[in-house]
């Protein structure tokens, strides 16, 4: 089964998400910071990253996305943001306003079904 990297510094969320994913047979790795996540990604090459943006500082997850985008070995790994940050959907943006790009954005709290559905969908898209 696919390797999934869970990047979050909230042990409560990490434990429950890990359980949900492992029950479905995924191999789950975890990292509690952007720096740790980079090290794990470079070593393990996960098929998917689940990422909280707010960790030890507010933009830590977005900075990780920027690092990934600049690394040819990591830039194609799909990322689903699962965050407590409140985001509002907008239809347009100036290029200078865009901080980073992600494949999917989920707002916490996320139900186990919703999480699994998005993970499976993303992995299918990647395989196709």
């Amino acid at each position, binding site marked *: 089964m696919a390797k999934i990297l869970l990047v979050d510094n909230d042990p409560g969320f990490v434990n429950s998400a890990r359980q949900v994913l492992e029950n479905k047979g995924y191999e789950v790795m975890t990292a509690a910071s952007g720096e740790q996540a980079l090290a794990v990604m470079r070593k393990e090459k996960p098929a998917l990253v689940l990422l909280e943006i707010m960790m030890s500082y*507010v933009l830590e997850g977005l900075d990780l996305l920027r690092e990934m985008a600049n690394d040819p070995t990591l830039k194609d790994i799909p990322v689903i943001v699962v965050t*407590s940050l409140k*985001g509002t959907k907008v239809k347009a943006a100036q290029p200078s306003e865009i901080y980073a*790009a992600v494949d999917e*954005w989920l707002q916490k709290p996320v139900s186990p079904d919703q999480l699994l559905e998005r993970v499976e969908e993303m992995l299918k898209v990647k395989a196709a």
Partner: protein
Amino acid sequence: MIVQIKGKPEFIQIQWVPRYTTMERVVHWFHTATFTLLAITGMMLFFPFLQPLAQGQAGITFRLIHRVAAVIFGLVPIIYLIIQPRRFLMHIKEFLPKKEDIGWLKAVPAYYLMGKHEAMPPQGRFNAGEKLNGLITIIAWLVFGITGLPMWFGKGVIPPELFRWLVIFHDLAMIVSVSMFLVHFYLAVAHPLMWGALVNMRFGVTSVEYLAEHHTKWFYGPKRAMEIWEAKKRESVH
């Protein structure tokens, strides 16, 4: 602050950042309400010129309000510790002074009185002043409890000399915490630079603009916050 969703004409705008949990806000406002009642009723008994207001039935009522408020004031942090021990201990750790807090202290006159933003080093989720307020609140809570309970239940039982010392420490804790409360109240409610502070504690969220200005280290991370501050300082020289 905008994040693009790859392959879709969709963007996510981040405008509000959660800063305080519901529990933190409930604890804060219960503490504020009970502290205000305790300070008012306590001062009626503390200041000789107010003591005429606390005679007879009025005095009995003020003492009763003081004690009821004291019970809630004492229990709120204990309930918080029981329900969310990890978060509670995280706060205590966050409030402990660090060497870098000296930079905030040095910058206070230039920043708060003259509005020189470049004078203020980057601050975390709590700035050093908020940390100091938090630390004094915890210490005062302990002193009020240690001195107040024997004053309430031990009158006539504990030696008069010890009772006198308890009263002195109770009063000192009141003087320090009320002074801190007044500074905190002014900064949160009236100071022009702290425009988002009250919103943060009312709604639990803070705007991206406010964070980028006041809590740069928590927003951008330590490395980038330092770079931004250095750039600000360079700009102010030119």
